[in-house]
């Protein structure tokens, strides 16, 4: 039965790959990247064998602890990262719990991340090869370390499922958890700075970690090599107890998860409350705008786009801090405009097959385009203007307001026009409504990145006049050019917006059924 589970896991992986060559390309690129990292890790670990015990032990324990921590944190961020053998789908089969646990664990170890982790862990044998006893211990402990990784990660996944069976909570937490991840750069920078000033503290940190569940499995061989068999034995016990505890907890939470289907909290409004549909004009375009705006507020896949609003100024502040000047902060407005205006460049993909409503109801292309553009404008334009005003006020450079605002407004309006065309043409795999908004839909990585880059490039071209004028005005200190940038931004942006909506509308009228067909194919995937 366990082998059947394993076969199923690989069968699914194989079939997914066979479906789409692009996905295969993505997996190969991902695999090569993983192999590169793995190769470096193995070489490094083996090379550590020639380093002093202290150094080797510090590095191995710190890296190993980070590895376990990573495995445990990932399921929090990416729910459904490995859905092949999701317990919920196995409920209907009469699998004894122990076999289920075993099967899920092995499937976890034999997944791509599991294999890479296992190889890296086994490479620690190379680190301690000069001490035969330690090398044997490293072999055993590597196995336990990997098991702690997998079981811990499965436990967290099972726990987070039962914690977040409320839809709203699940959706929100998916977004919030992502913020620190995006800020990882600055965080690592500050931590690294701290580490640089206190490099002496690292061995102490490693020593402390080695007594914790995170570091214990990795430090047993080090202690044996050092000849401290008492510490080694104790840490081995810590390792075993950790694994046993995790397994018991996992078993319990899985048992609970299996009998508690994901329920959803029902939120209800009174009869007759039609929200934004009562506010917007009662026309097809008005209805589309109301629907889009409702989705902006209710569907986390839209809401997540808004996290750039706080993130951009934080990132810019961080770089400003490095350059000891606040000038960069002024770019907040234009950058937010650039990113937000393109947030719906593939809006129709988010509709999924619900887009059939628009096709069946005979919505005219320009009504569809206009409605979506208005919703985007209502969300984004005030944010962009506010961000521009506030950052300029903070840096006290009111003289720069016209060129900065020119770039921001220009990018915003041009982007709206560009989206109106691109979303009538580009259909990419996106997470389905209700999934984790950051879950990358299968096969999405490569094609999405490609189309996103192309769209960004086009928007950059469309905004080039404003950018050049603004740049010249700031470089040469000519305020007139700045005012000109503002004028060009507004006028040219408006022209692009109008042209985009008309062109996109015409394209929609010609190809809406084909667009729906592509969406249906995606849903089938």
């Amino acid at each position: 039965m366990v082998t059947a589970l394993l076969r199923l896991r690989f069968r699914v992986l194989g079939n997914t790959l066979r479906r789409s060559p692009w996905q295969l390309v993505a997996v190969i690129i991902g695999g090569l990247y993983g192999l590169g990292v793995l190769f470096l890790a193995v070489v490094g670990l083996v090379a550590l064998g020639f380093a002093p015990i202290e150094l080797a032990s510090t590095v191995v324990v710190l890296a190993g602890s980070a590895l376990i921590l990573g495995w445990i944190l990932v399921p929090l961020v990416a729910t459904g990262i490995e859905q092949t053998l999701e317990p919920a789908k196995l409920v209907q089969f009469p699998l004894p719990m122990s076999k289920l646990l075993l099967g899920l664990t092995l499937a976890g170890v034999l997944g791509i991340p599991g294999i890479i982790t296992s190889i890296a862990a086994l490479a620690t044998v190379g680190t301690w090869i000069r001490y035969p006893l330690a090398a044997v211990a490293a072999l055993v402990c590597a196995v336990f370390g990997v098991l702690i990784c997998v079981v811990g990660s499965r436990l967290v996944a099972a726990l987070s499922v039962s914690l977040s069976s409320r839809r709203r909570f699940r959706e929100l937490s998916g977004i919030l958890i992502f913020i620190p991840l995006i800020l990882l750069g600055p965080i690592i920078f500050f931590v690294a700075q701290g580490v640089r000033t206190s490099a002496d503290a690292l061995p102490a940190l490693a020593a402390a970690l080695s007594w914790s569940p995170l570091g214990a499995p990795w430090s047993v061989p080090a202690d044996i090599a050092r000849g401290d068999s008492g510490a080694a034995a104790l840490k081995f016990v810590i390792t075993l107890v950790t694994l046993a505890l995790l397994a018991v907890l996992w078993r319990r939470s899985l048992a609970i998860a299996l009998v508690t289907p994901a329920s959803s909290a029902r939120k209800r409004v009174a009869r007759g409350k039609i929200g934004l549909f009562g506010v917007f004009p009662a026309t097809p375009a008005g209805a589309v705008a109301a629907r889009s705006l409702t989705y902006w507020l209710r569907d986390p896949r839209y809401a997540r786009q808004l996290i750039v609003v706080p993130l951009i100024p934080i990132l810019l502040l961080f770089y400003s801090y490095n350059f000891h000047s606040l000038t960069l902060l002024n770019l907040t407005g234009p950058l937010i405009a650039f990113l937000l205006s393109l947030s719906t460049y593939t809006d129709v993909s988010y509709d999924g097959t619900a887009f059939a409503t628009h096709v069946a109801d005979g919505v005219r292309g320009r009504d569809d385009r206009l409605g979506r553009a208005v919703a985007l404008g209502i969300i984004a334009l005030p944010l962009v203007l506010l961000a521009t005003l506030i950052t300029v006020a903070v840096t006290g450079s009111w003289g720069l307001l016209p060129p900065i605002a020119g770039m921001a407004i220009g990018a915003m309006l041009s982007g709206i026009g560009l989206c109106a065309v691109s979303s009538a043409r580009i259909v990419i795999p996106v997470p389905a409504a209700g999934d984790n908004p950051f879950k990358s839909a299968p096969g999405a990585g490569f094609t999405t990145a490609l189309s996103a880059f192309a769209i960004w490039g086009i928007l950059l071209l469309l905004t080039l006049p404003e950018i050049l004028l603004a740049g010249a005005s700031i470089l040469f200190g000519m305020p007139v050019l700045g005012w000109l940038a503002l004028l060009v931004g507004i006028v040219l942006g408006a022209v692009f917006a109008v042209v985009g909506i008309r062109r996109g509308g015409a394209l929609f009228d010609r190809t809406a059924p084909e667009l729906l067909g592509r969406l249906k194919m995606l849903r089938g995937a």
Partner: protein
Amino acid sequence: MTSDLPVPATETTPTSGPVAALELRGLTKRFGEKLAVDDLSLSVPVGSLYGLVGPNGAGKTTTLSMATGLLRPDAGQSFIHGVDMWQSPLEAKQLVGNLSDGVKLFDRLTGEQLVTYNGLLFGMDRQTVAERVGDLLRLLDLESAAGTAVVDYSAGMTKKIALACALVHAPKLLVLDEPFESVDPVSAANIRDMLTEYVTGGGTVIVSSHVMDLVQRMCDRVAVVSAGRVLAAGTIDEVRGSASLEDRFVELVGGRHHSEGPEWLRHS
């Protein structure tokens, strides 16, 4: 059943001779190797309740999608009351109410919002939309769920709200793909009454199903489709002859096994 269901305005068509509510001519669709719909022609007279039956994969959904402008046919035409769906889609779609199988709804909206949305998309004014949405929610027994997001509906409720969306603009032709799937018997009976009343009021319904019994009781005409072709079409009595519709269907489509099933499935 009350009579406040939006009923299409009866009007006389200017053209001479009876114009079919739905006229399909030579519809063909190929998906890769598979010929899903093969030169299919069908005429649905005005005022009929027309059943479209066929085994799984017969091309029912594909045919209805091409008829209603959701899927471009490789060849052939679809006329709604004489209006060519693929020549003047906007005009033709105004005449059709469509419940498609296998597509999602904008399910983050509440039921009431969703029906309102569909009404507004058809260009109706706010007042009329509000009245009809109220009527439909009451008729379909969805009033208590009006303010709940459609994503939280059960499968049957979702079908019913989709039906409301198809009805809100008082179409002259209703195209319903598997409308009774997962609908409870009481709601199904309500829906049947509603459709009958709609037809009495001058509307036309074409409904796909593989529940023969239901089609035989509800529809006045039927077409049997298999492998993308019409095998038989006409009034129920014409098609079934002396047999039941189900027997006739099996006879036409074939594929019935007269074996007793594997030994190990027998427990007595």
